């Protein structure tokens, strides 16, 4: 499964970077979203992918039955997903506000601190 995922993640990175290199500011934001998803998947995949063995412990027991998926990368990715959302919300509102004031969606025209 991992080779397929590796190709998929590579594609995600490529599209994210292509979008981030655009001058259009909205494309930049979409690139940012793709990039954070790609990074999350990268962490998730490199830890190894396990089918149908979530890191849960049955009630009344002290250890999971058999091998389960590694819980640590999951916890890290969980944090990352939420933070990425926070950043995205901030970026989207920032862009909206900047667009209202500067009236330009071209990053090249946003070079000065003066409006």
């Amino acid at each position, binding site marked *: *499964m*991992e*080779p*397929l995922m*590796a*190709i*998929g*993640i*590579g*594609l*995600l*990175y*490529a*599209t*994210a*970077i*292509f*979008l*981030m*290199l655009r001058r*259009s500011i*909205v*494309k*930049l934001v*979409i690139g940012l*979203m*793709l990039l954070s998803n790609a990074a999350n998947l*990268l962490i*998730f995949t490199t830890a*190894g*992918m*396990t*089918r149908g063995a979530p890191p849960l*412990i049955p009630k009344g*027991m*002290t*250890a999971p039955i058999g091998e*389960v*998926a590694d*819980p*640590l990368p999951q916890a890290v990715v*969980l*944090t990352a*997903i*939420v*933070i990425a*959302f926070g950043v995205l*919300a*901030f970026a*989207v*509102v*920032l*862009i909206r*506000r900047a667009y*209202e004031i500067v009236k330009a*969606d*071209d*990053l*090249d025209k946003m*070079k000065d601190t003066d409006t």
Partner: protein
Amino acid sequence: MIQLAVLLGFVLAAASPLLHRWCGDRTSSVLALFPALLAVWLLLQAPTVVADGAMLLEWAWVPSLSISLSFLLDGLSLLFGLLITGIGACVLVYAGEYLKGHPDLPRFHIALMAFMASMLGLVMADGLLTLFVFWELTSITSYLLIGFNHSDVEARKSARQGLFVTVGGGLALMAGLTLLGVVSGSWSLHEIGELDIDLREHALYTPMLICLLLGAFTKSAQFPFHFWLPNAMAAPTPVSAYLHSATMVKAGIYLLARLQPELGGTELWVNTLTLVGGVTMFTGAFMAIQFTNIKKLLAYSTIMALGTLTLLLGIGTQGAIVAFVGFLLAHSLYKGALFMVAGILDHETGTKDVTVMGGLRPLMPITAGVALLAALSLAGVPPLLGFIGKELMFESVLGASRFRGFLIVLAFAAAFLMIAVAAVVALRPFYGKRHQTPRVPHEAPLAMLIGPALLAGLSLILGVAPSLLTGLVSSTVSAVVGEPVEAYLSLWHGVNLPLVMSVVSLGLGYWLFRHWDRVRGKLLLLAPIMRNGPEAGYEAIMAAFVRFSEWQTRLLQNGYMRNYILVMLLTLIGLVGTSLLVRHSPIIAFEFDVRFHEAVVVGTMAMGALFAAIARSRLGAVVSVGAMGFSIAMIFILFSAPDLGITQLLVETLTVILLVLVLFRLPRFSNLSTSLERIRDGLVAATVGILICLLILTAWSIQQFEPISGYMVENSVPLGHGLNIVNVILVDYRALDTLGEMFVLALAAIGVIAMLKLRHDASPPSVTEGKKTAAKEPYDG
């Protein structure tokens, strides 16, 4: 004890503004007590040092790095210590009067006291790294003192020049000292002195010596680095008297003398030191007679003296070392006195140009007397200490083993040029016709006379009774030679060749003084050549630096975001790609264990990403991104991460809602780049994608450490009391991370609210409030 004294010097530097508040104009004299007492203490130590050789005062500082604050008190450091404290006391008293009422006097005291402490530390340090730290501190305090009148452009420029040259040499010195430490296996000077191995035989001897010499030559203004010293005369005169003639510029000489026993005597050492020293000696003397500015004159004559000292160390015979000690002491005394006289003249007449002074002797007889005494020592007239120094110097040069004829010519020329300089300084302002000067001169106040009178007086007393110095000279010479020797100075050496040379040079020097104005006019013809000296080289290098940094700033910091991203990506491709290809050939494990529904999910994700990249409308892009996000949630669920799946679903839903709500206020998609740019970006993006793909495959097949999650799985119930291990990790093992995450979210929320609500024109409240509460929800489950 001495360590405490040095530290106390820094404390006094820091406390001097406070002291100024209490003592006002008397602060300088109060501060002068410190070096004066220290000088007395050093004098009291002298008999012990002379009798027992070196005293080691140990004090560990950073033992783990074998850095110690141990101090070594032998003849050499004692001599330097006495000069630093003794002249320091004179200069402080003098400066109090010279800068009386100056608004920045407290700042002057800070820098001068800090310099004094650093210089003491430098000549006493036993550890190589301690020595280096103090060395750099003297460069920095010197910079602050040269630029004391910082409203003056020239002062700032000169300060910067002095700093660049000496600190540039300091870099080389650091390399040299590190090599010395590595080669000898010891970071302490006295241990290096006791080593059995001969450092001169080592393969790294040449690079080590070159680095050390670069440090010493820049600091001690040897040709071709001498140009910074005359410019440093932009400093107030007490600073010139103290740092730039008597002490700091001798730090390089001190280092050479310190290393002479271990590194000296080789062909490289002798050739470099004698040639550089000889050329510096002549250059200094020759340049000196071209200036009418009294401080420049003295500055160039200081360069001459520094060259002589280097030359004597290069010759390196015991006689030359005795000459070195005699000359060093004599020079510090008379040059300190002469600079202070120059300061008095400047202070009283308002000009530094000796040609517009004249006939001042009746107005300021004491100054005239002091100037005459010091100048006689500079000229090398018996019975002053300078005479002994010059005789010994001639003797050593006559006994030189290499470049003998060349050195004799240089030394003789330098000597008679110096006599002319001495005459110009001592006679020109005080005798002859009285000129109109910007200020009406009076005799200098007592505080300004004590220092120079004391130093000039010492030149006379020690010249008449050099036997007073026998102990100090013996132990200094022993320290430089590296073994205990008996040495002494004496005034009368009998009628011999050096005496003849002295007499002839006196005559020639006096002749030059009489015709100085005419000779100077002739020398002006050389000006075009002078302009292309080493200083022009320095200017060219600095200009090149500025041009280079302008160019690279324009290239890298150009204000275009995508250029920054491009540079970062290309660096990533270059560094990661190369090391990936060189270190690991990517191992592609083709276990294509993929089920149909999994392939469909991954395919949907990939399609979503691709369509998002090429979508022509904003809505299309948002829908594609949504498809990708939900596919990722599916992947999480399929591969044993239900918590991730749930969070991703929630966040993805919120993201799509957020985008759709804000979208109509966002600009439309626009195509701003040319197709060529798109191809370039596409290539870069594809390369990074492939690189990441290979990286994952490589990383996945390498397992360097046992995962730490085993512990977390085992202790989830016993310690964390939770059945969902991921949740236990989040709220227990890595609770601080989660706290940090909540802060980030809260900050983002505050930012969003601020941007939406805080404005002058009213606008509808936005969608965001609901968002952050929802975002935190996944943790409850």
